[in-house]
Each structure stands twice: as C-alpha cells, then as structure tokens.
C-alpha cells in the first residue's frame, strides 16, 4: 500500500543521505522524496512516498525515528491529509494544437508560465494522479519534457507535525 511519510529533521549536511541510505540499505521502496528547509532554518521537512506491507511501513517509521538527526516522523496516510505535487510540462504548441493545449491546461487548472512561438510551459499542481491524468489527456507526441517535484503532504485540520 502507498504511504506518505512526513518527517522533520535537523537541517544539516548529510541528513538527506542518511535517509536515502537507510532506504537503500534496507531495500525499502521509495517512490518520491522531497526535502526543503522549513520556516525554522535549522529544520528540514521531508516527504517520502513509499509502498510496502503494514509490517514494512512500521519498520520504515521506526528506522527513520532511530536516525539521530530525525526529530519527528508521521505517516500522513494514517489520517486525513492533503497531498500536492508540482509539475512543469513543456509541450509543443503549434497550429491547431496550440488552442487545444491551452484549453486542456485550463480544464486541469494549469497555468501557462512560458510561451514561445512553438511551445508552452505549463505549471500544474495537484495529487500525483491528477498530474498523471493531465499527461494522459494530452497527446504524448506533444510533450517535450516534464519535471515533477514528487508529493508534499500536510495533515488536515488540527493535525500537524512540528517540534
């Protein structure tokens, strides 16, 4: 099953490699991993999307907690949560397709953030599946390149992850 694990850790050199190393050393799956400092510059917040049985997810959270630099770990998928991913897509936009591309982007609430005579660059946020759906909706022949951030997540309502 897919899980989104959020964690706070010391914003120190090498902290990311401790987490990445843990996943490879113990052969855990890793679908995506995002990391950036928080409003407190001494803290980094990381979102890891992983898959595994309940036993494996339990081990993953325990092993993450065991890392000395990790302060808190939360499995967002245990409760209600919001998940967002940012994608930038550069597409061919010429002739008839140019108008059609704009419409499709609008339908998915994407924004065109760069325009040339022959291309659009579209910015889109949403859950991973929404981004997948957009990519399926446009003809793959039009896609020049895509870049995705991987999911970021946050708990709904009062649920929060803080020191």
């Amino acid at each position, binding site marked *: 099953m897919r899980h989104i694990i959020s964690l706070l850790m010391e914003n120190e050199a*090498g902290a990311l490699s401790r987490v990445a190393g843990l996943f490879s050393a113990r052969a855990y799956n890793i679908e995506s991993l995002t990391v950036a400092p928080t409003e407190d510059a001494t803290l980094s917040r990381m979102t890891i999307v992983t898959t595994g049985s309940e036993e494996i997810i339990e081990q993953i959270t325990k*092993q993450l*907690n*065991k890392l*000395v630099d990790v302060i808190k770990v939360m499995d967002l998928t245990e409760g209600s949560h919001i998940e967002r991913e940012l994608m930038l897509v550069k597409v061919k936009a010429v002739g008839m397709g140019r108008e059609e591309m704009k419409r499709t982007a609008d339908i998915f609430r994407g924004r065109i953030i760069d325009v040339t005579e022959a291309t659009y660059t579209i910015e889109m946020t949403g859950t991973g599946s929404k981004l997948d759906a957009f990519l399926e909706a446009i003809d793959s022949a039009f896609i020049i390149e895509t870049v995705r951030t991987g999911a970021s997540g946050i708990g709904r309502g009062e649920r929060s992850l803080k020191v």
Partner: protein
Amino acid sequence: MPQTAVLQAERAKSAADRRIGRVFLTETGQTDYSRRSTNELIYCQIMDATGAEIVVRCLAEEGVEFVFGYPGGAVLNIYDEIFKQNKFKHVLVRHEQAAVHAADAYARATGRVGVALVTSGPGVTNAVTGIATAYMDSIPIVVVTGQVPTPAIGLDAFQEVDTVGITRPCVKHNFLVKDVKDLAATMKKAFIIAATGRPGPVVVDVPKDVTAHITDFVYPDTVEMRSYNPVVKGHSGQMKRAVQMLLEARRPMIYAGGGVVLGDASAQLLELARLLGFPVTNTLMGLGGHPATDKQNLGMLGMHGTYEANMAMQHCDVLLAVGARFDDRVIGNPAHFAREQRRIIHIDVDPSSISKRVKVDVPIVGDVKNVLNDMLALLKQAKEKPDAPALNAWWTQVELWRSKNCLKYNQNGAIIKPQYVVEKLWEVTQGDAYITSDVGQHQMWAAQYYKFDKPRRWINSGGLGTMGVGLPYAMGVQLAFPDAQVACITGESSIQMCIQELSTCKQYRIPVKVVTLNNRYMGMVRQWQEFFYGSRYAESYMESLPDFVKLAEAYGHIGMRIDKPEDVEGALKEAFSPALKERLVFMDFQTDQTENVFPMVEGGKGLSEMILAEEL
C-alpha cells in the same frame, strides 16, 4: 601492571568528580586536576586550545583510560598532544582494524565507552570492519578519525576518503567537524550517543586544519539534542499486561539476549527467573546474562543451541524476550517458528527491534534494567502465583529434552577433541576467565562448553561474525583487567587474520593466553561443505600453516604445541600458572579435523528440526 592500576584509580576519581561537573583551572588556564570542587565552576575552561588539544582534553574529561590507535598524517597534531599528556594511555596497535576491535572489547568487558583513533583514508577503511563489528553487536565506542584539511576535501587529496559516507551504514551516528568551535560539543555528543539508548559506534571525523585551529575550549557537562531522546522507562500498562501474561503461562520460557548484558540487567533477570521459576535460555550475545550453571538455565539456543533450549523455545506458550532480537541464527525460519501458538512479550530499548522478524503481543520499549525492576515490583505485589502444576509438568518435559544430553562427545582415542579443550579450559580457569573468541566452529564450542556464570565475560563477534577479532579483543579485555585470566579461543584460520597483534601484546606486556583449536581447516566452512556441498572442500583447507610455536617465539612469546589428549590439561595449567602470569602463551592444539558442531539447525529450517550428533 601498576601503571594501569593508577590509571584506574584516577579514572574512578575523575568519574566521581565529573558527575558533579566542577573543575578548577590553573593560572595558565589548564585543568587543575589536583583541585576539584563541588560548587565553583560549571565548565572546564581552557582558553585558546587547538583542535588537537581539544580532542585530547575531551577524552581526558570523559575519563578515558585507553586510546587504541595508529598515527598518520592527518592525526599528527592530535598525536603531538597525546605525547604531552598523561591522563590516558595510548596503545599502538599494528593494524587499525585491531585498534577498533580492542576498543570494542574494552567496552564489552567494562561497560564503558571504548575509544580508537585512526588516520584518514586507509586508516579509516581499515577501521571499518571494526566499526561494523561493534555496530552489529551494539557496542559503545567512539572512533576519532583524521581527515584531510577542509579546503582539500572533495579534491581527491592524498589519503582522502569520504569517511562519513563510508561509515554511515555501520555507525549509530557520525560527524564531520568542519569548525573547531563545534569540536568539544561534538565530542560530548559522540560519547552520549554511543553510550545511551541502544549503544553503538560513533565516528568523529576531524580534518587536519581543524586540529590546528584555535578556539576557547569549553567542555559541556551535557548536550541537549532535540532529535535524540531514547526511551528509558517502560510503559506501565504494557508491563502490567506482561506480568499478567507471565502469571497465566503454562509453558513459559525466558529468552535473554545481549541487551541483558549491555544493559547490566543480569541481576534483575536472575531474580525474575527465580521468582517465577521459569526456564531461561541465552543467545550467543547473552551468554553470562543468566548463569550457565543455574538449574533453570537451558544453555544457548539457536543454530547451534542445545536441544532443550530450542525445543522449549518452539513449544512454549508464553515467551518473554529480553534484550534479544529474534535474528535468523536464533529462531531459524520465522514461518516455522510461527507454526506453534504462543504469546510473546518483548522488552527492548530499540523499538525497531520489536516486531521486526516476529510479531509480538506485548511490546515494551525501555531500558531493560528499568523494565525488569518495574516488572519485579509488579510481580511481588501480584496476588496470583505461577500455575505450579502446569509449571511442574512443563519442567518434566524440559528435563526430558535435557536428558538427551545433546552436547555429549567422546574423547576416547588419540586425537584431541576441540570440545575437550574448552571443557578443560573451563575447569582450569574455574569458569572465571574472560573468554574472547574468533568466528567459526571454535566460537560455537566455546559458547557451548565454557559455562559463563557472569556477564561481560564472553567477548565475541556475534552479529557481523568477524574472523580476526579474538586476539585484539583479548588485548582490550586484558588491559582493562590486568589481573584477570584472559583467554582467546581461536582457530588456525581466524588467528591469522590479526596475528600481527602478537607484536602489540609484546610491547605492552599483555599476557593473554591464546587457545588455538587447530584442525587445519576453516572448520565451519568445511562443516557446511560436508553437509550441503557433497564434501567438496573448496578452498577450506589451509596449507602451509606457519609453525605457531616458532611464530609465537619470534614475537617474543611462549609457544606450545599439544598433540595428545592427555597433554591438554597440563598445557593449560602451565599456561595459567603463576610462573607464566606475565607472559603471553600461544597454545597450538592439534584437534580432530572431522569434528562438527552439533546440534545444528540448517539455514531455513525450524528450531525443532535440529541435527544431533548421534543421528549421523
């Protein structure tokens, strides 16, 4: 060794003072060790110390007794400071691997943090085997490593490796100190992290320029780490459930691991076992955690465990696991283990050890000693008592298993049986020696036939299974306890992996007794090849072995070669006689080449599917 005794006395004194944490300074700003007060200064302050000086001062402040190390370019500043001090003794090994092993053994035997110091690059890569060995067995050590100067890091400088990267998977934590201002606090963190929670090795990587930089030295009493707070006390509700479950048990079993030894909880375990009257088994790492000669002790369990321990483990209805981790060499195939219904209580300081290989019913995270103390209190308050008739019936069954006498062997004949040597060693040393071992058949025979009644007496590489640890382990133990009997049970293959340390033993007059069970084979490899590879002994026969007697003599020690069973006892008695108390004695016992370790649970098999000696 009078010098060591002085050091130990000083250590005890400084440890007592350090707890109060007040240190006086001399006029020149050095720590004044002759004047210590309970109410003056909060910190030990030395103005304008170099990084190298700070490293050495920190070690002194921690009450470190021995630093095992090997110098090199990146640590020359530190060595220069070591030269100028007399608070701790530096032990020069012959290979960095041995430095870490010796520090590791010192920690295992004393319960204090062991310290090793190595240079950058090859110094570090040589140390990695030692670090990984300590990591797998949760041993508290601090390894200080030299690094190339910070401006050279990443430029493929001479003797540069990414130490933090290379050691990351086999340390509890590691640090690269880029600023001399962070050095003292980092050293403090290293000692705290190594020794608390589930212990483990910590590496502090110090670039050469940092050892030359100057700053104010303040050694903190403690360092707060918001991200590091190991659980100490067990959950009271879980402990109540556990006690209830123990009292309801009809076929109970206590399974005690290395955590009992590391957590200094053997007295509590013994009391609990006595109070309940339950059978106890120890893991390889837990030997001595519950006395082997106690009637309730069923011996070691696992791949080469006793018949009674493995059968009781498989067929119990309530299992109390204390500081153990259900690893593959202990319970064999987890699916087979799960076939029998039983409820499991698991006490461990590391939550990730719980429900890792075996699902448990009552997890209790906490310091083993605290948890056992709390459970003892609950048990004493409880109105119920263990079910006596059920327990009697269970013991009858256990005794039936025990009557198989699975460790019996036959010493008739002209060839020395390895088991016989270990049994005689136990007799000659009155079961009171510190025994280190290498890895292989001799390790299992040592575990099976030397009956450890006290914790911290059995020093071996359980998790990583590192051949070569035996001799450096014996060095670390003997230095910590100069008057104790220390024997290294080894094989002719293992001993050659760190044999250069015979030279260290000569330099520091370390009088360990090396008991080599020489069967001219890598015995455990040969055993597996006999059982599982149609007796095709690929590369497991050692040709061209050295003459160990001459070799020992070349290093300045005493060598003995023993060929006949009737000479075994005499040789051991001589080696441990007062006349040779100050000498290292290397005993080369020519043992039976075909002997195998029994009982044996094959890989992938269940605990109750043992091969016994008589069945072949």
